[in-house]
């Protein structure tokens, strides 16, 4: 199987700290790959190294079988940075043509693709052609669309998106998900970083979790869940947990971890503990059980289990 991306033992040090330590990843062609981790884990540094914006101190990176420092290799990659930015004073169409030229797409071909994209994302309609407007006349949502067009205009085989969902409203967020899946159907490879575990879990074929610059685990989502999940339970309580119920859930001989969502709990059993014992004790403590189900762990659960609460910094959330 050809690898879209083959990262071998990359390390990046800055004065005083190591941003990425000995990270290796393989991303097969045609997959959607999630790079997960809390803020400051080294996601953006890794992505910048992929695109040769900064050079790793050690290790090598190959894109579609060729080193990313070779001439023309990066023309195969499309990049959406976390900090979005466009030349505000430029006309949209001229800006897109410039971005296309930077990636080696020229003249009439660039114009044709720009028009197709503007139509597709309804930036050009019968009433109004936003392509003729200046960037700063566009709404924020429209600017994000333009940025996205700029990322995909040269039809890259590898699409790299840094926190693509941050700052998107639900409609644009859904449109982005659709587009990512569409790219996958067309045989492209998409790698995106996120701290939103729910998105990653639903969309990704494979993930890599990193924390403090190091890889915690990686692999296909199903495999990760099978390997790293212990015995997990979904528990629903009418009226939430009383003090007596909380006491049961805090008994570490049965419950290794309980993720409290008030009326809903994700529970990881302690090794060797019996779910039936837990159920009986809950009923005895007066809990009104609405749901009690053995489940596969969520990525969020696995993340908490592997990285620990100390790995969670501000901005970290299991919901998106």
């Amino acid at each position, binding site marked *: 199987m050809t690898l879209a991306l083959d990262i071998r033992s990359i390390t990046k040090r800055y004065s005083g700290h190591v941003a990425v330590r000995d990270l290796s990843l393989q991303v097969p062609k045609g997959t959607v790959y999630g790079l997960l981790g809390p803020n400051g884990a080294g996601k953006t540094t890794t992505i910048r190294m992929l695109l040769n*914006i900064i050079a790793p101190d050690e290790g090598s990176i190959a894109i579609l079988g060729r080193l990313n420092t070779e001439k023309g290799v990066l023309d195969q990659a499309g*990049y959406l940075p976390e*900090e979005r*930015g*466009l030349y505000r004073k*430029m006309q949209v169409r001229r800006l897109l043509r410039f971005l296309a030229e*930077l*990636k080696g797409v020229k003249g009439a071909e660039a114009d044709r693709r720009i028009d197709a994209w503007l139509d597709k994302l309804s930036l050009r309609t019968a009433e109004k052609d936003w392509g003729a407007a200046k960037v700063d006349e566009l709404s924020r949502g429209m600017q994000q669309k333009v940025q996205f067009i700029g990322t995909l205009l040269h039809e890259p085989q590898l699409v790299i998106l840094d926190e693509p969902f941050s700052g998107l409203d639900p409609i644009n967020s859904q449109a982005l998900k659709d587009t990512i899946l569409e790219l996958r159907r067309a045989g492209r490879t998409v790698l995106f970083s996120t701290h939103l575990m729910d998105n990653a879990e639903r969309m990704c074929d494979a993930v890599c979790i990193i924390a403090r610059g190091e890889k915690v685990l990686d692999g296909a989502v199903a495999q990760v869940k099978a390997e790293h999940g212990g015995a997990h339970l979904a528990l629903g309580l009418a009226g939430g947990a009383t003090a007596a119920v909380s006491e049961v859930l805090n008994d570490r001989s049965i419950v290794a971890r309980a993720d409290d969502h008030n009326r809903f709990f994700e529970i990881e059993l302690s090794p060797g503990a019996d779910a039936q014992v837990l159920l009986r004790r809950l009923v005895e403590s007066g809990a009104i059980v609405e749901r009690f189900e053995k489940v596969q762990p969520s990525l969020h659960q696995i993340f908490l289990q592997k990285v620990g609460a100390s790995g969670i910094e501000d901005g970290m959330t299991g919901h998106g």
Partner: protein
Amino acid sequence: MDKILAVFKREYMERVRLRSFFIATIFGPILMAVLLILPAWLATRTRISTDVSNIVLIDASGTDLGQRIAGQLSRNGGNPEVRQVAPDGVAAAESLATRQVVAKQREGYLVIGQETVSGERARYAGRNASTLPDMRFVEDAIEQSVRNSRFEAAGIDGQRVQALSNVRLSLGTERLSERGRGSAGRENVVLAYVIAMLLYMSIVLYGQSIMMSVIEEKTQRVAEVVVSAIQPKQLLAGKVLGVGAVGLTQQLIWVASGVLLVRFQAPIMKAVGLAGAPMTMPSVPLTTALIFLVFFVLGFTFFTAMFAAAGSMVSTTQDAQQVATPLTMLIVPSILLLSPVMLEPGGTLSRVVTLIPFTSPILMPVRMSLTNVPWFEVFGSIAILVVTCFGAIWVAARIYRVGVLMYGKKPSLAEVGRWIRAR
């Protein structure tokens, strides 16, 4: 290379499209036209109006002085009217003349009396009383008439005295220095000054402008998108070349319009109804012009690359002023040294500062337009500038590479040093 071209094209097209570029570019020729027309127009303002002799002479002197003055005045055309009155009739004559002036039949009136014959005073009232040349002309006419009547009384021919004492001499000037004669004509001094100012202005303006555009790319977060597709040094090269081409375009428009203005000065002046003074174009051989171009390109590249690097070090326009100051300090000496170099283009000071790469881009063309600079000095200066230019671009590219993705606090000098050495 294609990618540098893409950056170059964007930089050039977006700048040339700006309204400010358009205004600055047409402002140059307009300023030149004003400088050409204004002196000639001012000269017409200081010429005597033809109405000056269209006045009434109220003569209460009881002599022929009024007739004499009228004779003098009518040399400028026109027909002064002499009204002989008795001393007590002056008031009535004046009020009549005043009415005529108000009715615009006459320009003004002059009152002369016995005190005029004695050479003490006369009075004038009129529409043009505040026009200095007119009044000087009237005064001259009176003085000349008084003088002539005195000459005649003494038995001397006034006309003859005037003819004999009339000398119009013009002093030809030529500058001598230890390097020989005729080093600088006046046109060459003007040329040198114009060249210095054009270079200085374009370096300062475009240096600041490229710095702002680098900061803009950082604050608007475009830099990362661009740098993911192209190496920072390619981006820097494209920007410097693009801005340089814009500067060169503007200069060429200015120089061409300047040449055209001088060349077609006579028809232009005629069109606006002024008589033009003859102007000579300082002659610049083609090779010298090409050398000027080399200095412009090198000096411009050197400073704009440094300004771009300075811009990449900061994230706000406030900080930009601070990092720009040391660079401006490298340019300003060129202007401070302009007068010394122009005074003594062959002196030791001139020879030294035209070798120093910070001052040579501006001062060497100045020196060359004033005097013959030995060819080895010219090429030595170019060689030093080329080497420095490459060094500066190398340093600028390395600062830029790191700086363009750095946000937040302004780096210290030590940090910038680390950026330059970084892998």
